[in-house]
């Protein structure tokens, strides 16, 4: 490949190769567009680049622990539960890309081909109109420019390809999808499920839908993926392709079309805006190895760098026409940033089912969809929370003493009774004051202004946390669980890793950045379909929605390109 302007020109450019960028790449290349994917991190090839995937516990020098030096040098990423010896190579270390926390914000990142799709917990729940209508009903943010019917076919489209295991639960607040068979729930999970539906008319405990191939279909085998083997070592990369990641699914698929050019080590610095043409013509990239700045060109640009980096790229794309960041006529770019409140957790014991246990491992759990304020406002706080619910029996080792007695005890650990636990996933309200800005003078290694994050919980979050404790404690108590313990992790925003907003969708260009097609109101050939586009957060794990929005937006963009409208 030479280095002429021509060889640096494509039909489409996708910034980022994670969950959303992978989908953009797949959809564009399948539709015949020559597509360049720019990825700031290194290449990670499915199977080949999963160095720890087949390791046994004893093969890890520190048995999974992170060393004190690494923790001390990287306090933020060290707080992520999945940052362990087996997967730490897929996380960005704090020192590798500093940012300024005007208020504490744990920014957890994966910079590599595949992004965080290698690391995610694979929970995939659809939104319903109770979620899309939230801002309009409750008077916050702006109205979503779409409703469930707009995205439903696209949920189906991505679910079929990614492979989502689930149960048809028939709940209006958590629509069913295209499901592969569910795995089993445990006896205690089934007990709690029955208990809750008998005792609470609007509450349900269901099998948590997840991106695992419980029964691969031809479309999955064609991707080279096989059945989930219940290893629960997903964060290492799966040798069976049992869960959905860009690396195992969308990217190799895009590669096979012959239309994909993947360029790792390429930090997108900014988007080039052509004042005459009135649209974007390409991007400026800093090659992380040569530190050289190179320009690439295309008719359409998809920004999928994950919510925070997408905001940075747009804020840094200034021009005469857009002095405050690309498409930022409204002044809302970087504002109304939100996340999920994951602070609350609760655990307990259950004295029943002593004659039963589980066998093997499950990659998912049970799930309580949001039950607060669903149909109408009923509490002193807005919106609500979903919760996970999991259970199991543990092994208890008696470790007192030494010598033969101790050894005998180690050989014969005692099986405990059942434990149960839940964690909260609360909706937070996007506010103008929760914002991202760029430093006026300090720059990062690639010449991009340093990011400032100014994000905090509010009173609504505190009230909701309290309600989570009260309601869960009540349900747990009534269900006969004992030794109930609640805990507030007090974790900073960000550690939920569901950061959203800053480039929100809306009907009105005066108060939003993107229209109903995820297209910048003011620069029609630039689309944002990652978490940055989210007008509100609801309570569902968000990535499935990013996938569906991305596929939908690519479909629209390609139609517009054909009509010469971009």
């Amino acid at each position: 490949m030479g280095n002429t302007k021509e060889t640096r020109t494509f039909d489409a450019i996708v910034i980022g190769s994670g969950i959303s960028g992978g989908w953009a790449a797949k959809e564009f290349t399948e539709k015949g567009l020559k597509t360049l994917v720019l990825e700031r991190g290194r290449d990670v090839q499915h199977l080949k680049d999963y160095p720890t995937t087949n390791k046994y516990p004893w093969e890890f020098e520190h048995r999974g622990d992170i060393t004190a030096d690494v923790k001390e040098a990287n306090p933020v990423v060290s707080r992520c539960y999945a940052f362990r010896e087996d997967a730490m190579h897929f996380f960005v270390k704090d020192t590798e890309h500093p940012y300024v926390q005007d208020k504490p914000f744990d920014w957890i990142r994966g910079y590599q081909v595949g992004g965080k799709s290698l690391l995610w917990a694979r929970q995939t729940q659809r939104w319903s109109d109770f979620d899309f209508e939230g801002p309009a009903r409750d008077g916050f943010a702006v109205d979503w420019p779409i409703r469930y019917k707009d995205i439903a076919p696209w949920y189906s489209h991505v679910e079929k390809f990614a492979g989502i295991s689930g149960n048809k639960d028939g709940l209006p607040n958590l629509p069913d999808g295209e499901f592969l068979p569910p795995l089993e729930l445990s006896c205690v999970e089934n007990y709690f499920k029955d208990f809750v539906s008998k005792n609470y008319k609007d509450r349900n405990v269901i099998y948590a839908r997840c991106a695992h191939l419980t029964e691969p279909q031809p479309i999955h085998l064609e991707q080279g993926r096989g059945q989930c083997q219940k290893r629960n070592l997903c964060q290492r990369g799966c040798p069976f392709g049992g869960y959905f990641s860009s690396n195992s699914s969308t990217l190799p698929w895009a590669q096979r079309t012959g239309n994909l050019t993947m360029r790792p080590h390429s930090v997108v610095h900014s988007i080039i805006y052509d004042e005459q043409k009135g649209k974007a013509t390409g991007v400026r990239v800093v090659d992380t190895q040569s530190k050289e700045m190179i320009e690439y060109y295309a008719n359409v640009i998809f920004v999928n760098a994950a919510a925070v980096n997408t905001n940075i790229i747009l804020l840094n794309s200034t021009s005469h026409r857009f002095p405050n960041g690309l498409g930022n006529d409204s002044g809302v770019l970087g504002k109304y940033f939100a996340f999920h409140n994951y602070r609350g957790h609760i655990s307990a014991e259950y004295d029943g089912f002593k004659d039963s246990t589980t066998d093997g491992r499950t990659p998912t759990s049970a799930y309580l969809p949001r039950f607060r304020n669903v149909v109408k406002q009923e509490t002193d706080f807005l919106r609500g929370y979903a919760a996970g619910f999991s259970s199991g029996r543990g092994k208890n080792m008696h470790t007192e003493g030494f010598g033969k007695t101790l050894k005998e005890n180690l050989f014969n650990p005692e099986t405990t009774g059942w434990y149960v636990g839940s964690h909260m996933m609360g909706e937070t309200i996007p506010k103008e004051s929760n914002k991202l800005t760029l430093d006026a003078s300090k720059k990062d290694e690639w010449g991009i202004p340093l990011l400032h994050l100014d994000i905090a919980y509010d009173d609504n979050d505190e009230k909701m946390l309290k309600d989570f404790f009260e309601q869960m404690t009540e349900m747990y108590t009534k269900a006969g669980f004992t030794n109930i313990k609640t805990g507030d992790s007090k974790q900073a925003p960000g550690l939920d890793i569901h950061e959203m907003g800053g480039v929100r969708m809306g009907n009105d260009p005066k108060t939003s950045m993107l229209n109903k097609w995820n297209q910048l109101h003011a620069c029609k050939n630039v689309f944002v379909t990652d978490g940055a586009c989210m007008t509100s957060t609801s309570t569902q794990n968000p990535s499935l929605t990013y996938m569906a929005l991305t596929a939908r937006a690519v479909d629209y963009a390609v139609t517009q390109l054909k009509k010469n409208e971009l």
Partner: protein
Amino acid sequence: MPLNRRTVLKQFLYMSAGMALLPACLQHHAKSSMLLKHIAIDGDQEKTLAELSETIIPATTTPGAKDVSAHLFVLTMVDDCFTKADRDRWQAGFAAFEKMSNDLNGKNYLSSTPQQREALLTKLETVKDEKDDAAWFYQATKRLTIRCYTSSKFYLTKVQVYELVPSRYKGCVPYKPAARKVA
């Protein structure tokens, strides 16, 4: 809270200074078989740890702590994963442990008989004072020894079998208590 380059640099200097100091501490003794970054351990201390771990989990008809190199795991974990405060306390506790051995048995741990070693550990097991460095050292070392043993290849293939690829999940199966295993 961007990590300031200077802190990182300082840490790096601290580490390399630690390494530079290491040989000096070892002049009178055989070297530890491991290259340690932070703590200073000589060959005798390494042997002492091996014997201590073996008293904690002795070889019987099945392997003991020494067979799974538990003492080397203890050193790796203390050196790499303990905070500086805990590393320091562990080292001070090691010295206190030896002193306790001398006080009780008139000799250090390595030269003690199996009965003398057991007498010392029996005494340490009863210490409730959280400020006692020798007991803290002993409990920390014991915890790591147990962790190493119960995550060793031997234990996870022969005692409690770890399945890398279970290929199944059953949510509700009859619970049958396992037959008692002879250690």
